[in-house]
């Protein structure tokens, strides 16, 4: 029997989950929008963020420092990836496909080198706080609330960066027309590298923030990545606003659906939905709202 309480509980869980998904998905869609790269190593970067942040946490016991380290390490990972692996492919005729393959390779390298170094063992991470609020039988984990707030703040900062700074203007221009942008004196390689870094830093932030929920192990990024992937396709590749709407909607649908169906069926539903969107309107929600 499904009670109203359970439904509300799942809606709150869904909202929190949506914030996490959005954090992963926004970075993924940003790289495509600006640099035309589908970064399949995004889940691997999430994992790098989780490892580096949790090591800092174990060392210093300080969450802000752990978040800073996770974001710094993954920012560097992103910039280096762009400069070493993606940039040499940019002149290729089939750049979008070549970049898919090279980032797939990077995903394997990241995941399995960590497995080699740290084994597949799951490391538990102490949450920011163990406090729990109970309102009318509805349980709210304060840790997840804080994670949600930080995610929203990070996404809002990204929006502000894109909208109000000179670098944001360069990003928007590069997404619109890279050749003209270059003629206007924008350093394109630098713009691409920094965009990559910002995107991966968001994945790294997601990695450390979710480490108390998911623990830390080499394949920890795979599922968040697949979910973010679905979100981005439905939201419309390259559209940040479409991605946000899709993240919250899908997270709510999934959380509520989990009351009735198994996790496998919920994945089939999500991927099925994604396939339908791609067939009917490849530009997703973004194609409708970003006119």
């Amino acid at each position, binding site marked *: 029997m499904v009670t109203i309480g359970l439904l509300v509980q799942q809606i709150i869980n869904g909202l929190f989950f949506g914030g996490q998904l959005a954090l992963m998905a926004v970075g993924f869609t940003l790289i495509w929008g600006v640099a035309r790269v589908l970064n399949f190593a995004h889940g691997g970067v999430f994992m790098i963020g989780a490892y580096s942040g949790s090591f800092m946490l174990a060392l210093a016991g300080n969450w802000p420092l752990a978040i800073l380290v996770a974001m710094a390490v993954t920012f560097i990972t992103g910039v280096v990836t762009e400069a070493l692996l993606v940039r040499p492919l940019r002149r290729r005729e089939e750049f*979008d496909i070549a970049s898919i393959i090279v980032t797939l*390779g990077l995903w394997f390298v990241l995941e399995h080198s960590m497995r*080699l170094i740290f084994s597949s063992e799951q490391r538990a991470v102490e949450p920011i706080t163990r406090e729990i609020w109970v309102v009318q039988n509805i349980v709210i984990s304060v840790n997840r609330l804080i994670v949600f707030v930080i995610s929203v703040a990070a996404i809002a900062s990204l929006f502000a960066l894109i909208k109000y700074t000179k670098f944001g203007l360069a990003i928007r221009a590069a997404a619109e027309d890279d050749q003209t942008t270059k003629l206007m004196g924008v350093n394109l390689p630098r713009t691409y590298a920094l965009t990559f870094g910002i995107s991966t830093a968001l994945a790294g932030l997601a990695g450390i923030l979710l480490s108390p929920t998911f623990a830390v192990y080499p394949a920890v990024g795979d599922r968040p990545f697949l979910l973010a992937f679905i979100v981005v*396709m439905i939201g419309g590749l390259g559209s940040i606003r479409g991605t946000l709407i899709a993240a919250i909607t899908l997270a709510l649908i999934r959380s509520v659906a989990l009351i009735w169906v198994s996790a496998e069926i919920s994945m089939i539903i999500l991927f099925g939905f994604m*396939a339908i969107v791609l067939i009917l309107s*490849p530009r997703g929600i973004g194609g409708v709202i970003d006119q």
Partner: protein
Amino acid sequence: MNIGLFTILIERIREDVADRLETKTGQLLLIGVITSLFVPLFTNGYSLDVAIQLLIFILVVTSWNFVAGYFGILTFVHAALFGIGGYSAAILAAEFAVPGVFGVFTAGLIAAVFSLPMALSLLNLRGAYVSMLTIAYAEIIYYAAIMLRGITGGPTGYSGFPVLFGGDRVALYYFVLVTVGVLVTIQYLFAINRFGLVARAIRESEEAAQMLGNNTRRYKVVGFVFGSSLAGVAGGLQAFNIRIISPPVLELQQMIEFMAMGIVGGIRSLSGGILGTVIVYGLMEVLRPIGGARLLVWGLLLIVAIVFFPKGVVGSLKDRFS
């Protein structure tokens, strides 16, 4: 087909084969084909298993090259169709007592049936979008295989079905060799004829191919379904080879391994698919003692191949010797 056309066809094959035998790649392939006939004389047990597995992978990788390299349709659903072929052959043998040899080809047919709606839905998409839609299909098939316990055996997989040739591995080897040999030859015939030419034209510019009066949509559907059916046959062979078929063969990871073999060899030719499979699978066998770290090597191979050898081993050999 009248006699005149047939003679032209034979003549074209003769010329093409003669040309190819003058290249390093062609000579390597000839040596490979001759060696493959005598493998069971030299080895037994484990090496024979490796040889059977290699042949099956050659069929998967060349058929992926056929779709991805010739038509430029970078599909990720090939491993899942390989898995569908495997499940089909196993279930046909166990539940319907279909003779294995017949089941293997029925598996190809079933994979073709599954791939037809996919092929149609891909027609309006290009480049990265094709990859994304096929990833969605592959994931749906993967989760369905886990969920449909009653049919597929769920996460533990499907096993305990009748073996082929009473478990005689040498007979199985020759059956696999002949099947793979015939199917690779059919792909070769497609590739050197008008069909292959149009396929490559579609890859370079679909609009131009269309303007020259080719029904490019029909070519793409036929190419995709044909390539997919070969993956199904390979899956059927695989089921009888390893005698269990389980969800991991459907996973994205398996797909990436197939892609690595194709890309290392060079996805734009059949010989690239064959040599890539031999090189990468051979390397993985050599590296077996290092265990899980081999997956790290898969990733490195993909990166090095795409950054430094975009045309694959075959393309690089060609550049070097001509």
